[in-house]
């Protein structure tokens, strides 16, 4: 479980806002949302606070998309690498001077370090701080630390603000309107707020528990690696299919089954076709093997041509066996049969490999499908949360304008 989603200073702040607003409501003796018992000041302020909290919650989305669309102001702060290197050299110089005893306090070292980053024009991308070192732990007397300033705060903090102020805005909306269902606008606002808050809470728990759930199902390969494996198996099968097609030019049924299996991933159907194909071939191969064994024991000339001719009665391998059996020279006849058998072994292996690969890909795709389902389930709440939030924003603007107007 990702507990870091809940560890934030924004939580207590949001709680204080909710408690203070509730205390104020109780203190003035008003009832949440009822027009009769309402206090105009309270209604106005609770409304503005709720709107402000929603705005803060929405800033997370704005921040996220600004970066994604390259409109983030921080991207404009970029400095050349040569300036960074110059500042690193300057800071190393300050460190050496500090080790030499040129400074008498942390503040002095820090001032010199700050001067370096300002002079090199990199202060917007480097935050320098100095602390007293611990010589016993192998540190220098003064330790200059360099970090990226991350001026606008990490997205994690923005998500915390989104979660907590979003939840607080729900409480404020309730205090402001009391879920009064007396007017179409009120109904819509209340329903949408509830929808946004409930889907948001579902989202929080899915984001907290979902990763562990997904990791358990990923086993050794993560989501991305599964995709890569799937693509690699797909390429391998394609190469294999080309080889199979070359080896089985006349075996249309088997090639078609492989192609179909490749396209649809229907491994069971393919296994059945492969089995019947193999069974049919095995019969003639057994017969051919018998002939070969007989030939090996007796002299080649002693085996009558009729024995070879019987091989050509089988529907499979017919043309090749016919050709071999019709050969007049006994040695060539035997060599022909052996060649057909060798070819069969090769093609049999190729088809078998293709079926195995398809089976592997089926396994990967089944795993991927499961992971995709989990991922879908982890994100499906957003399909309601986001449109409902956008609609709510529009309605809030309308609500504010209408109150202003009337």
């Amino acid at each position, binding site marked *: 479980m*990702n507990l870091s989603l809940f560890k934030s200073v924004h939580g207590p702040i949001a709680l204080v806002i909710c408690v203070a607003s509730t205390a104020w409501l109780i203190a003035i003796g008003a009832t949440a949302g009822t027009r009769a018992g309402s206090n105009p000041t309270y209604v106005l302020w609770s409304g503005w606070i709720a709107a402000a909290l929603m705005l803060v919650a929405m800033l997370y989305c704005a921040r*996220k998309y600004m970066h*994604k669309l390259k409109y983030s102001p921080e991207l404009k702060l970029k400095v050349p690498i040569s300036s960074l290197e110059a500042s690193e050299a300057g800071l190393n110089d300050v460190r050496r001077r500090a080790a030499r005893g040129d400074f008498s306090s942390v503040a002095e070292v820090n001032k010199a370090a700050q001067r370096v980053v300002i002079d090199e024009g990199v202060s917007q991308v480097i935050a320098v701080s100095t602390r007293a070192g611990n010589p016993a732990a192998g540190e220098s007397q003064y330790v200059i630390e360099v970090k990226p300033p991350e001026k606008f705060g990490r997205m994690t903090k923005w998500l915390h603000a989104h979660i907590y102020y979003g939840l607080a805005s729900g409480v404020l909306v309730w205090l402001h309107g009391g879920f009064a269902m007396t007017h179409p606008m009120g109904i819509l606002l209340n329903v949408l707020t509830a929808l946004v808050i409930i889907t948001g809470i579902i989202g929080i728990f899915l984001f907290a528990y979902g990763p562990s759930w*997904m*990791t358990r199902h990923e086993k050794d390969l993560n989501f*991305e690696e599964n995709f890569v494996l799937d693509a690699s198996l797909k390429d391998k099968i394609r190469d294999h299919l080309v080889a199979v097609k070359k080896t089985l030019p006349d075996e249309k049924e088997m090639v078609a089954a492989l192609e179909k299996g490749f396209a649809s991933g229907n491994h069971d159907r393919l296994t059945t076709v492969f089995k019947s194909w193999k069974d049919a071939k095995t019969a003639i191969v057994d017969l051919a093997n018998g002939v070969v064994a007989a030939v090996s024991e007796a002299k080649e000339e002693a085996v009558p041509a009729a024995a070879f001719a019987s091989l050509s009665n089988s529907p499979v391998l017919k043309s090749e066996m016919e050709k071999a059996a019709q050969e007049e020279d006994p040695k060539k006849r035997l060599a022909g049969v052996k060649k057909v058998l060798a070819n069969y072994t090769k093609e049999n292996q190729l088809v078998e490999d293709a079926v195995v690969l398809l089976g592997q890909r089926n396994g990967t795709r089944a795993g991927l499908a499961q992971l995709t389902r989990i991922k879908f389930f982890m994100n499906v709440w957003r399909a309601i949360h986001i449109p409902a939030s956008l609609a709510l924003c529009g309605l809030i603007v309308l609500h504010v304008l209408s109150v202003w107007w009337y």
Partner: protein
Amino acid sequence: MTDDFDVLGLLQSLPLFEKVKPGALKKMYVDPEKAKPGQQTGLQDKHVQFIVANPGEVIVRQGELDTEFYIVIEGIASAYRSEDGGKSTLLGSYGQNDFFGEMSAISHQARSATVKADATCTLMRMDVTLFQQLFGDKTSSFAKIIDERYRERALAFHLMTAPIFKETSQEKLKLVADRAELVSYEKDAVITVATDPADAVFLVRSGIIKRSTTGSMGEERVHDYLCDNSSFGEQALAGGEPTWGYDGVAMSRVDLVRMPCKLFQEVFTSEEDKHKLTRQVSLLLQEEQGIKTSLSDDDRNELLVGQETIKGTEALVIDLKKCTRCNACVESCVSVHEDGIPRLSKRGIRMGDLTLSSACYNCKIPECMLSCNFGAIRRDKDGQIHIVVDNCTGCSKCESGCPYGVIRMAHVLTPAEQSAQQPSIWESIPLLNKLIKPKPVEVMADSPKGKPMAKAIKCDLCAGLPFEACVYNCPCDAIARRSPEAISGIGNR
């Protein structure tokens, strides 16, 4: 330096280049009359540049991690070493035809001294790729002079880093330096065999050695990787008839200082010296036994060592129990790179619930930089590895050289292609973008064969920006940079 300066004449006049193969000289200077069509003629500034340093200017600074090699063409420069107490010691001066920076170029370690120009200096600066090629040819005058100078100037200092010489005087170290052998092994060469008698102590100048034993099932069990300044073979001095006890294999080209047992008998003659040496050897062997035990007990450590993670300085770690697979890290990586190609890949070494993503580890010994023949990979003074895209020829040697699969080959887009690929605001809106068919991007041909050329790309740690995009934009706090030691609790010896 003026444009009509006779670079070739100068190079040929330098003792260092007296007996180097003509091919090596061509890496520095291509005669316009002998150049192939399309080849850059004159000075090959990918590998070699001439620079001028004004009086007092710092040329290399102690502690920094750049690896260039310098030859003084004109002027005088001096080397100073700062000690812990802030005291600065003059180590020596360099005049015409002298050189410095070879230690860092060989070992890739931080500069051991600061070199300042005493008067206006003209220097020839050579990148580490070319330096390694020249130094690798042990029959050349270049390697011989560097080795001679190393023995003369630096070996005694280098020996001080070996734990067995902790209590040894400077005079004795000088004697050891004079008698020690400088040996080299090519990649995959066997340096020690477990059952062979141990007959020498080794100090690693450069390269990586893998020490392993064979387990009961015949499997290889990696003990550790020894990098620069590591020593091994101390058991040879422990008395009796010790064997190596492990197989030592060179993982890259390795330069070693070999000190046979006989050398110790010749140099450490007094009882006091022998006692000090024996004490250090026994302490070291006890310590080594401790390392072996802890490694064999810890699968995670073995995985890290086996994957050579120990060579890196920092890893990008994804906590899979926090990662919602939202892809914000990759999308943010795309946003900060003008060519629109993400440097981050979420594939990598899996350690339980952690993935050590294939983002650059900024290795102490950057294999990618050493395998690049075109000066397209360089390490800055702070140890960060950068790809110089303009120098990249797309040979992909760095891709195969990187032990972590961090470097990938990708078609880096031209500005025209970038603007064509930039999605419109409508294409960026979820759902709506499914309805809009993006314009096909016409990829320009920039290779001599008229095909699009793939160039090496890798994580640049968002250099120049005030954040690391993937870490900064992860909403679930699932991604962070950690040192391998912090993950595993182990470190280099």
